[in-house]
């Protein structure tokens, strides 16, 4: 299936990635709009559902879905509905995440519950998820029952894993669990973010593109390592770089979010430092002072937790590159193939 391409070849690999993300993002948004504007707007609901999708967003997950579909032999039209479902589901979960985290800002504007109150926001989040399912079912119709059954199966798995991951993270926070290992972190990141963010979109694309003939298990390892690396990099950026979008700097530290760096610093600090750290972790969020947060950030820097995080992220990316070859190695070269391969570097190169 050919498309009109820009007359000049994009200059750098970063430009090519951005161009692909932009193109697939546009197609997904168009499909999304069709669903969001389907009927007369229900009051207190449809505007809320349309809010997050309208705030922009990198559209990375839908692009992964579409690229996988094309690489396995499918076309843009069939894949775009699934991509829309992916984006809708992501947005629905963001609404709930923001409430659970108590966040004030999302993508440069107040969070949905900050604007409308928790009750309406929760309702809108649920409705978004149902809309995502409806979009998915519509995307399944031309596929035939075997492929549709596969899609439902992998989505059920993803839903289960995501719920388990969220429960893990919340449980660690609420019960102040502190003796965690790197493996615990990987498991949580796998369940909470990698399944929904990387593995499932790729599997959807694979099933839709191959008409149900390729095995969804094929892309699990690649999606896992990619997702974990992305998550660690996100956590690193939260610590070190102004994340823009009006997110708070070091917000994760205020949260005492169990990142790889926090796990490391807890392992590496002296008994005196650990006592102070444990006290910090035992506090409620609003009890924690900016001074303590600054101390913690400095501790991480000094004890090499940041360095450790970077190295592990790089290693996970390396594993992702290896798994890319295993999963996609037999497929012929194409721009979508390059895009998926480029995701490994994109972890670190993205703006």
């Amino acid at each position, binding site marked *: *299936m050919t498309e009109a391409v820009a007359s000049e070849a994009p200059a750098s690999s970063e430009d090519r990635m951005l161009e692909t993300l932009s193109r697939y993002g546009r197609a997904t948004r168009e499909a999304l709009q069709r669903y969001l504007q389907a009927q007369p707007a229900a009051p207190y609901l449809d505007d809320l559902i349309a809010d997050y999708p309208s705030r922009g967003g990198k559209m990375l997950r839908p692009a992964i879905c579409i690229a996988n579909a094309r*690489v*396995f*032999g499918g076309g843009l039209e069939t894949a775009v509905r699934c991509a829309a479902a992916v984006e809708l589901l992501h947005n629905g979960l963001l609404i709930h995440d923001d409430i659970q985290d108590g966040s004030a800002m999302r993508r440069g504007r107040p969070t949905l519950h900050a604007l409308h109150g928790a009750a309406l926001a929760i309702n809108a989040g649920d409705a978004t998820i149902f809309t995502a399912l409806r979009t998915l079912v519509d995307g399944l119709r031309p596929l*035939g029952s*075997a492929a549709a059954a*596969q899609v439902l199966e992998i989505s059920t798995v993803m839903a289960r894993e995501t719920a388990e991951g969220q429960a893990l993270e919340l449980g660690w926070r609420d019960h102040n669990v502190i003796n965690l290992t790197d493996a615990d972190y990987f498991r949580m990141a796998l369940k909470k973010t990698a399944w929904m963010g990387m593995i499932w979109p790729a599997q959807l694309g694979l099933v839709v593109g191959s*008409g*149900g*003939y*390729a*095995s*969804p*298990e094929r892309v699990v390892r690649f999606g896992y390592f990619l997702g974990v690396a992305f998550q660690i990099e996100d956590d690193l950026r939260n610590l070190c770089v102004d994340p823009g979008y009006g997110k708070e700097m070091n917000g994760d530290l205020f949260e005492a979010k169990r990142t790889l760096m926090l796990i490391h610093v807890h392992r590496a600090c002296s008994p005196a430092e650990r006592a102070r750290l444990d006290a910090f972790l035992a506090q409620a969020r609003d009890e924690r002072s900016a001074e303590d947060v600054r101390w913690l950030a400095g501790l991480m820097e000094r004890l090499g937790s940041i360095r450790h995080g970077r190295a592990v992220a790089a290693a996970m990316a390396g594993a992702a590159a290896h798994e890319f070859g295993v999963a996609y*190695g*037999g*497929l*012929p070269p*194409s721009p979508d193939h390059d895009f998926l391969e480029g995701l490994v570097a994109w972890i670190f190169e993205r703006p």
Partner: protein
Amino acid sequence: MARVARAIGPESESDVTGKATKVAVIGGGCGSMAAVWAMSGPEQAGQFEITVFQEGWRLGGKGASGRGPSGRIEEHGLHVWLGFYDNAFRMMRQCHAELAQQGLADLYGDWREAWTPEHDIALYSVAEGGGFERWDAHMPPRAGLPGDPLPPGTVFSLPYYMARAFELFRSLILDTTVDGRGLGPEPDSQGRIEAGAALKYLLGLGSFATVASLAQGLGLAAVLVRAPGVAGAPGLAGALEGLCARLRLWLEDRWLATDRHRFLWEVADLTLASMVGLVRHGVMFDARGLDAIDDYECRDWLRMNGASVRALQSPFLRGLYDLSMGYENGDPDRPRLSAGQGLRGTLRTFFGYRGAFMWRMRAGMGDVVFAPLYEALARRGVKFRFFHRLTNVGLAADGAGDAPHVASLTFDVQAETRSGGPYEPFVTVAGRPCWPSAPDFGQLQDGERMAAEGWDLESHWDRRRAGELTLKVGRDFDLVLLGVGLGAIPHVCREIVSRDIGWRRMTQEVKTVASQAFQVWLDADLESLGWRGPAYITGAFAKPFDTWCDMAHVVPEEDWRTPPRTSVYFCAVLRDPPAAPDDADRGYPKRRADEVRASAEAFMEGPIRHVWPGAFGADGGFRWDLLAAPSDATSDAASQGRARFATQYWRANVNPSDRYVIHTPGSFRYRISPLDMTCDNLTIAGDWTDSGFHSGCVEGAVMSGLLAAHALSGAPKLEDIIGYDHP
């Protein structure tokens, strides 16, 4: 006629892509078509420009079928697809889906219309005390459908098979009947079985099943448990044998005093011998898998491992040999099948099927398989050149400084179309596109003369042609996929065979047999002739036609003015003459065909008596009037008596390319894989290659084609060929 050497150029300037790799595919059988399907798929993004060269007027090779008078289906023999043909079914399901997407759903239908599940087989063979006895086996349905992706983590391993063996063994006990009397509670008039009675029966029978399974499991376990570690290993085999012998004594004669259970014991006996053999020969841990025992003959190997004489003569085993035509030179007194492939084939056939054990086709294999494939491939842009018969694969001169490769391909151009455009191969019968039994001479230049002179464009012995064509590497093709039958290789690959010892040994050691078949159409159905259903296919029957099949379901697909009630196909191996026929012996095919006809007529008067008693008149003679003659003028519909057989269909498959490949002990090492690099621009496809599954069947050919596609394009991945990595 003038010899015309032409170069194939591009049809027009715009066809010169310059980027796509040109592939010349020779032969249109299962192997080639599977390869072409894989290489022309959308994920290959037009990387290959493929042209298929086919002798004669139809695709299919050994799987080709035609339509004769009254639109009747005329096949090479009996074609049944088994439920483990995952790669073949996957291809056909994709093909049907693609055609449906292109709006041809009405014409070709859903794949489930083309194939229907079949669970029942019958073995009908000579009984010990004289006469015949019949086994009906109902193979239970299993989860899924053939061609479904395998559940992740599926591993083909011998312990996996052993577990499946028990499942099936128990189901067989529940379902199998001998001479119509059930072993378990009988269903009532509405086909229901009382659950309590069934369970009670199972528990009562459980001791038999338990004992037999314990013999296999605990026999091994007991000995292993007693022996302290590895040191006792040499004694263990002996003790194992002793245990099994004791078990046999216990069960034989006493337990099996009644005939009803005997066949079950024969199956159990063979299973027991196989498992003993797998353990003793260390196959479970051998990196070569079942190839480790492939030098043994199958029955020899079973006997070595304790199978009883009776089990070795059982119709069950005979049926397996008949189905694979495992008789050297086609001689029924020389059964030769390798133990490794014998076991591999049996394991996959019985324990690897999905959905149903067997799937029968709605019509001839050409109509059901090769017509939709041709249609879909043509729409994908694959080109077909009918009437091109390969005569030589020319290698580059030795020592030219380049690796050995194919430099030229020479064809006899048997005919050319009048219009100069492509030949349209189909006729429409009962609303569907079909391959005819003879070319449409009307489309061909000099067609009337060819028809009048009786040109047989599929016969090895009829070399008449309209011209010659030579293709050159680089200009006309880049890569070659050789999908001809094994029997043709010595004729068309003389250069490779003379230069390469591997190819030479292959032509000597990989054996083929000829086959014979006939089809009758009857004005009465088999029930009324005395053959009770529901079994659709019957094997292990009398020689020479040991396998036959009730094909009533295809009659509506034909075009009879007055349709007969049923159609029955017979097929078997055909013995070779002591000396190979000369290439100039034009009359050879007709002589053998006459032989087949005479055998068939004698068969109808002889062994058929046992299965269709109602087909014989009061005088004891076969009621030849039952044979339904076609409604057109091609045969004498009024003929009487034995002469009426001339209105039916028979054939001797003696063309070298039509010979059926068998797998004799030790021959596996002489097979050549499509992945082989003897020539770096050539690959091969067909059931005669080293496809991993060395059986002359559709699935072996399709796997071979997928390997050929991998050899040329890197796709599909070898791990994606279902069953390739397999003990």
